[in-house]
């Protein structure tokens, strides 16, 4: 069952640099019980997409298209309804969220707060529920009495996840939620998140610049570049056999240990993503693309099916069945 659906979502910021089209027409869907991964370098529009879901974008952002949660358009719903949806319908664990805990309050109180506000529970019930949630994310319930500075980065990130779970949301958006954590803590947090999806059938959007992590935990992966989805498909296939030169380069940046081909050859991709205020003509990836052909300079490729209905790519070369790496 489709839980979340983006239909031709566009977000344009207006600032000192003029109009910045940060998201330029995204169509994506997430089912209940499914994890959708979104990968891409910084600045390609991932967080903008995430924030659009809960209407957390600044006023200067112009948003068009539709974002349907259980069939209801989040972009047009009234503020009262939106407030309820923000905790019980969908919640976000942000990039660097562990730094955003309030330093002067005990973490138990911070986890209990949304329950008090949205769940109509008594303070005692909310506190008990907060302890239960902390336990669920692998922290001893006694941690409820700790202040944020007494916790490690990994523990703080778990507190943030406990908060996101407080009102039993149907959808969780994790924006680089494990990026700053080390391997073992990252593995613990990922295990926790995937467990929630499997047990409780929540839907999840997991955003990361590390395609190898997404391939390990997500069913479907979408790769974003310059505000558009440039490739979509089963996550492990997008990582292992990319059908877009950008996904291939992104995947190569994180080597498979044991693979002799990546030994002594750090993968990478020269150059920076384009400034969204000054996108190149034709395919926006062309200035960094090693396999570009003539039409790439003048025409912009659409995301279309390649190799069956599950895979799609916005690359002329891939669409004609050509190799996307040299």
């Amino acid at each position, binding site marked *: 069952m489709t839980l979340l659906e983006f239909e031709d979502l566009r977000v344009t910021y207006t600032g000192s640099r003029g109009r910045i089209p940060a998201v330029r027409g995204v169509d994506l869907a997430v089912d209940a019980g499914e994890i959708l991964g979104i990968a891409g370098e910084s600045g390609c529009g991932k967080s903008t997409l995430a924030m659009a879901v809960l209407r957390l974008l600044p006023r200067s952002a112009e948003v068009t298209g539709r974002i349907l949660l259980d069939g209801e358009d989040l972009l047009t719903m009234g503020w009262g309804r939106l407030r309820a949806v923000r905790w019980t319908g969908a919640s976000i664990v942000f990039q660097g969220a562990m730094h955003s805990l309030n330093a002067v309050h005990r973490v138990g109180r911070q986890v209990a707060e949304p329950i008090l506000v949205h769940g109509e529970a008594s303070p005692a019930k909310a506190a008990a529920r907060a302890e239960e949630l902390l336990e669920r994310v*692998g922290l001893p319930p006694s941690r409820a009495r700790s202040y944020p500075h007494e916790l490690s*980065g990994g523990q703080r990130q778990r507190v943030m996840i406990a908060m996101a779970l407080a009102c039993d949301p149907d959808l969780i958006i994790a924006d680089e939620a494990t990026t700053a954590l080390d391997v073992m803590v990252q593995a613990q947090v990922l295990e926790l998140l995937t467990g929630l999806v499997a047990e409780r059938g929540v839907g999840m959007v997991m955003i990361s610049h590390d395609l190898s992590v997404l391939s390990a935990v997500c069913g479907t992966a979408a790769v974003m570049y310059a505000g558009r989805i440039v490739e979509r498909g089963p996550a492990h296939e997008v990582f292992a056999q990319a059908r877009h030169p950008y996904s291939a380069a992104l995947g*190569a940046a994180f080597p498979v240990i044991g693979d002799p081909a990546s030994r002594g050859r750090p993968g990478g991709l020269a150059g920076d993503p384009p400034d969204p205020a000054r996108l190149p003509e034709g395919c926006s990836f062309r200035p960094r693309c090693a396999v570009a052909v003539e039409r790439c300079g003048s025409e912009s490729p659409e995301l279309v099916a390649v190799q069956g209905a599950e895979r799609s790519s916005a690359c002329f070369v891939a669409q004609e069945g050509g190799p996307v790496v040299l």
Partner: protein
Amino acid sequence: MAEGVLSARGLRVEFGLPGGRVARAVDGVDLDVAPGEIVALAGESGCGKTTLARALLGLERPTGGSVSFGGEPLRFSSRALKAYRRRVQLVLQDPTGALNPRHTVYDAVAEGLRIHGIADDEPGRVAEALSRAGLRPPEQFFLAYPHELSGGQRQRVVIAGALVLEPDLLVADEPVASLDASVRGEILSLLLRFKEDAGLGALVITHDLGLAWSIADRIAIMYLGRVVEQGPVEEVLTAPRHPYTRALVSVLPDSPVAEPIVLAGELPDASRIPGGCRFRPRCPAYASGEAAAVRERCEGEDPVLAGPESLRVACHLVHARMVA
């Protein structure tokens, strides 16, 4: 000791904490880095990597053991340290914090030259260092401020600042942790090129084992202040022996270890290092009974690094198997 080798022997760094407790951040480390080799030092957050790096640079006074360079023990007079830091340079974690926002790129790179009183041809040296770090043409970057640069360019400026003194060895603390997928590859290629073209040695500190696989010759795995496994990257990462290394490798995507072993709990506090083997409270081999034959030793005795050069491991179970 061979020319230009940086060595730690039994190195300890302790910090006094309020209440009289002592944090043993580095707790008996043996490590060598030779010119022309890249050694990765990997381990969980808080295991003591940065403290070890600082001690190797003489920025932290060891409470035990020694650091030596080319066979000469490190001396802590300010003159001796100054001369030493010309040859061994530190590249810091987080390029944003390492640069002064009010200094231009030129001043940031020239700072080292000025500290060391190298006045001849300053612009030439700065330009050379910037272009070696991949910022070309260098003159275009002279007057830029850090906020005008991308994260990758900032990290290159920091590296140029280290290279300008033409050191023999770099100690780089998480050089790519805050960088994007693409830039990461560029910076790692840069380190690899310095090694191959100029014979530079480097100790690269990271919690990212993929980085070690990409560029390092040898790897040392650190746990709670101590190196628990050390050897050539190919061997340690494809056939890890220490139960901790096995767990770390197992949770990587497409891991050579079949079943993921997600360790419970977190790294204990450096002021509460468990008795016996320091890894025992989290050790899957101990908990499952796999280590039953050496159980008492796990409980009573902290294992030391032992074995031939290619498989130095600090674990009673591995030692027992090596003998068998």
